[in-house]
């Protein structure tokens, strides 16, 4: 973005274009820039630097959920096993993210167990079993085609009897618009709750950074069906900026815990709103 001495309409247009191209979403960008234009009118912003700082601070606010307890603290405060359910639409990176989180928790000295509750997709169980071998972490699985609720139930039981700290449950990708699949998810949660009343302690929605405004629809419907408590935003190692995360966090008030930046087990980072916002401007 060019060097200018003062804030002219062209600069605002240029920044607006950049934000739309970062997938922030037309509605969000319009709303944001209406605020900025009135800030400029009231002479609150002296120069392009001030304007940029103002945009960044508005965006940081959108991406931050106040009074949010970190995942680490939640895990520490609960009595084990701490059960995490991972959900999201097809292909966003749920299974790989579970491998990454399991690796992270293991590095932190936690005992982790994974449930292969995607009993539908071809070789989904194999995929997690191969990850389990690489990570040296136990994977609970049944036969392909079996009831995912039963796998989740068994995994929590195994988590208890083997004194695991954390149980992470993988689910099949599903479009948020498929009512029967969203009902299946509700059933999985109910059955988990029957085995352990607090389970799942955490329900993480995985979103793909290359997704456009459909991410908002995904977040809304998954929230409706399963009370999502946290987000992981994947594939930020590509050229997509994931700007739609701002609208999702702002509307749903769900914190982003991690970002995925690659395909290896170590490619997971804690979410940092400031770094994320700076990257939107690159």
């Amino acid at each position, binding site marked *: 973005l060019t060097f200018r001495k003062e804030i002219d309409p062209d600069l605002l247009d240029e920044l607006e274009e950049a934000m739309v191209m970062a997938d922030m979403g037309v509605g969000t960008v319009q709303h944001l820039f209406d605020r900025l234009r009135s800030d400029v009118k009231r002479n609150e912003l002296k120069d392009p630097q001030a304007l940029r700082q103002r945009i960044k601070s508005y965006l940081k606010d959108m991406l931050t959920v106040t009074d949010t307890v970190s995942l680490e603290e939640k895990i520490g405060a609960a009595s084990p096993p701490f059960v995490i359910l991972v959900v999201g639409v097809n292909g966003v990176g749920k299974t790989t993210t579970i491998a990454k989180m399991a690796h992270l928790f293991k590095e932190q000295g936690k005992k982790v167990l994974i449930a292969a509750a995607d009993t539908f997709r*071809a070789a989904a169980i194999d995929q997690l079993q191969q990850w389990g071998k690489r990570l040296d972490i136990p994977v609970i699985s049944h036969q392909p085609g079996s009831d995912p609720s039963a796998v989740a139930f068994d995994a929590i039981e195994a988590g208890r009897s083997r004194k695991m700290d954390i149980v992470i449950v993988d689910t099949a990708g599903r479009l948020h618009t498929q009512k029967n699949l969203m009902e299946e998810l509700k059933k999985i949660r109910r059955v988990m709750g029957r085995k352990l009343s607090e389970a799942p302690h955490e329900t993480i929605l995985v979103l793909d950074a290359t997704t456009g*405004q459909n991410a908002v629809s995904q977040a809304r419907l998954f929230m409706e069906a399963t009370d999502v408590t946290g987000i992981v935003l994947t594939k930020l190692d590509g050229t997509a900026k994931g700007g739609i995360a701002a609208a999702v966090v702002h509307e749903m008030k769900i914190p982003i815990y991690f970002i995925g930046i690659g395909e290896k087990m170590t490619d997971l980072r804690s979410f940092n709103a400031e770094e994320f916002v700076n990257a939107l401007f690159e």
Partner: protein
Amino acid sequence: TLGNRLNKVFKKLKGYGKLSEEQIQEGMREVRLALLEADVNYKVVKDFVAGIKKRALGQEVMDSLTPGQQVVKIVHDELVALLGSSNQQIDLAGRQPAVIVLVGLQGSGKTTTAGKLARWLRKKGRKPFLVPADVYRPAAIEQLKTLAKQLDIPVFPSETSMQPPEIARQAVAQAGMSNLDTVIIDTAGRLHIDSELMDELRAIKEAVSPQEILLVADAMTGQDAVNIAEAFDRELSITGVVLTKLDGDARGGAALSIQSVTGKPVKLVGIGEKLDAIEPFHPDRIANRILG
């Protein structure tokens, strides 16, 4: 809908039946917003609106009693014209066995599409051979082998120790010897900015001279669709696109973005997870979807 929003803009007609240029401009703004909301890329939207402005300022809108409808019609016609502009058939002519390579970003639906395509082509009388050339993702080879088994379609016995270009070469040779006439190669998901992996695709292309290199793209892709498509097309000269997960509620503006930067046609769409969930691309259907 766009129609309702345009009617609001144009209803200040006050009975004289002639619109002002300013009203047309405001109408174009509504068109821009509608396309951006559908995830069409910002720059593609600008070009698109510039492209229809002449017609929008012409007699058919200015003199119309229903100018809003006229503008929607112009937008719709132009979308269909762009999206349906080139050959959408799967090209299997030339050297046999015919070879199709599926490429694209991680998780877009390549492996599933390979299975669907094999089943679809067999229904059309071809003898497909599925080739797993993703040696990186855990259980990727198993995934395609499982689909092949479900369909009772022969599959090349790839191993993760093999190199993808070599898998491709051996598979085409084997197809020739087994009288299978259509080789479908599934490749690993990759970022368009990963030069090593893009080189691997070029090596596969060089090894087997495919008739079709299809970019498999997710219908919910946002603004980044232009970057992805432009890079894959520049590096490989793709021959077409498969747009997946259209059974969701994504508006699918990526279709226009991709067509606009590559000029290559969407040939097929994925409309579900089952292996029969594939069909030819219908420009008018996606045009309606983009317009909301």
